[in-house]
Structure formats: C-alpha cells, structure tokens
C-alpha cells in the first residue's frame, strides 16, 4: 500500500516566494503537492501578511491564484485560539501572529512548516517540524 502523503503548512516567506515567483521552488512544489493530492494549509494571517508585503497587483493576483488551487486550504484564525496565539507569538516569534498561527496549525495537524532557515528556530521551539526553503 502507498501511504497517503501528509500536508504542509506555509509560512510567510514560502507564500511570498510562490506569489512573487522570486524562485521557481514553491511553484514547482505546488504542482507536486497537487498531483499527489496533499493538502497545503495557508493560515489566514499568513496570507494577509504576505499580501501586505506584495506591492504589485500582478503579484497579488498570483497570490490569489495560488490560494485558489485545489489542494490549498485556508485556515481561519479562531477566536478560541487567540490567547494561545498571542502567547506563542510572544514566546517564539517576537510578537508575530502570522508565524504563531502557522506554528499552531502545524502542531495541531502534525504537518511541517515550510519556511526559511532564519525563521526555523522559532518554529522548532514552538514544537513544529520544519522544511527549509532552498
């Protein structure tokens, strides 16, 4: 039997790379994830923060197209998680809620977070597995 591959959670730099097309890695990765039917979790706060960083309408359009892909699941921020997210953000991410939201999503689903080497320590300290961007 072929085991069903698990999902992955995106941090802000991974989603930015996909939207801006700075490298081809994240876009190639989405094609692979889609082909094998694996879920791509995009926390709503990660998407919002990525959108804040994008200046061009064309890049925002690519962000929307990425998030509309069949295997992308946008994860809303639940009011019930607010206190835990605030604490996670304070303890491991210098107050950044988007990173905390990605970490909490990853921890609960048991899926790795895709992020940069520079941000990985916070996720590991928060109890999430990490897959590093190239």
């Amino acid at each position, binding site marked *: 039997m072929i085991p069903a591959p698990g999902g992955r959670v995106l941090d802000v730099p991974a989603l930015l790379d996909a939207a801006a097309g700075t490298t081809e890695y994240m876009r190639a990765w989405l094609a692979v994830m889609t082909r094998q039917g694996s879920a791509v979790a995009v926390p709503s706060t990660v998407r919002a923060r990525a959108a804040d960083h994008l200046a061009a309408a064309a890049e925002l359009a690519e962000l929307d197209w990425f998030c509309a892909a069949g295997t992308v699941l946008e994860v809303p921020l639940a009011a019930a998680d607010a206190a835990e997210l605030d604490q996670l953000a304070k303890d491991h991410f210098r107050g950044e809620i988007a990173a905390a939201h990605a970490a909490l999503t990853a921890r609960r689903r048991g899926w790795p977070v895709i992020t940069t*080497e520079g941000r990985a320590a916070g996720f590991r300290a928060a109890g999430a597995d990490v897959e590093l961007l190239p």
Partner: protein
Amino acid sequence: MATKKITITVDDAVLARVRTAVEDGQADTVSAYISEAAAQRVARETRAGEIERRWGPFSAKALAWARKAAGAAPEPADTAYLAEIEAERAARRPTA
C-alpha cells in the same frame, strides 16, 4: 454519462478494502468506487497541469526540492540536486 465496461487488475488488499467500503455503503458498487477514485486522480492531474502551464516548465533542481518538501518519492538525480541546494544554503550562512 456514457460508460464502458473494461477489465482491470487490482491489488488483492486494495480490492478487499474497496469491497468493504461498498458493503459499508460508501459507494453503490465496486465500479462506482473505482470510477470515483480515477476521476479524482484525473482532476488532480488536470490541476497540476494548469499550474505547470502557468508557471512552468520547472527545472530538474526545483522539482527535486519540490518532491522532497512534498514527501514524494525521489528520482535518481534528486540526491545531487539536493546536495547542491544545501551547499548554496551553507554558502549564504554568515561566517562566525
């Protein structure tokens, strides 16, 4: 929808699970179950093809990393590309 009768070969263990699913009411027939699975695969391939047409073609190096990051089975050349990526990452690290 028009249908056609075909003969296929299925792994014994998979077929046993399919038959159990049908007995449990998850599908009307074995054919319906297999057809739905095939339709889902076709939909995934179609969507992946749309991504490749919009943003591809992707380099072998990018696909090597993509397979690793997705937990997909590696291809023979992937090890060399992944070593290259790790070397590039190491070169970007600030020296102590």
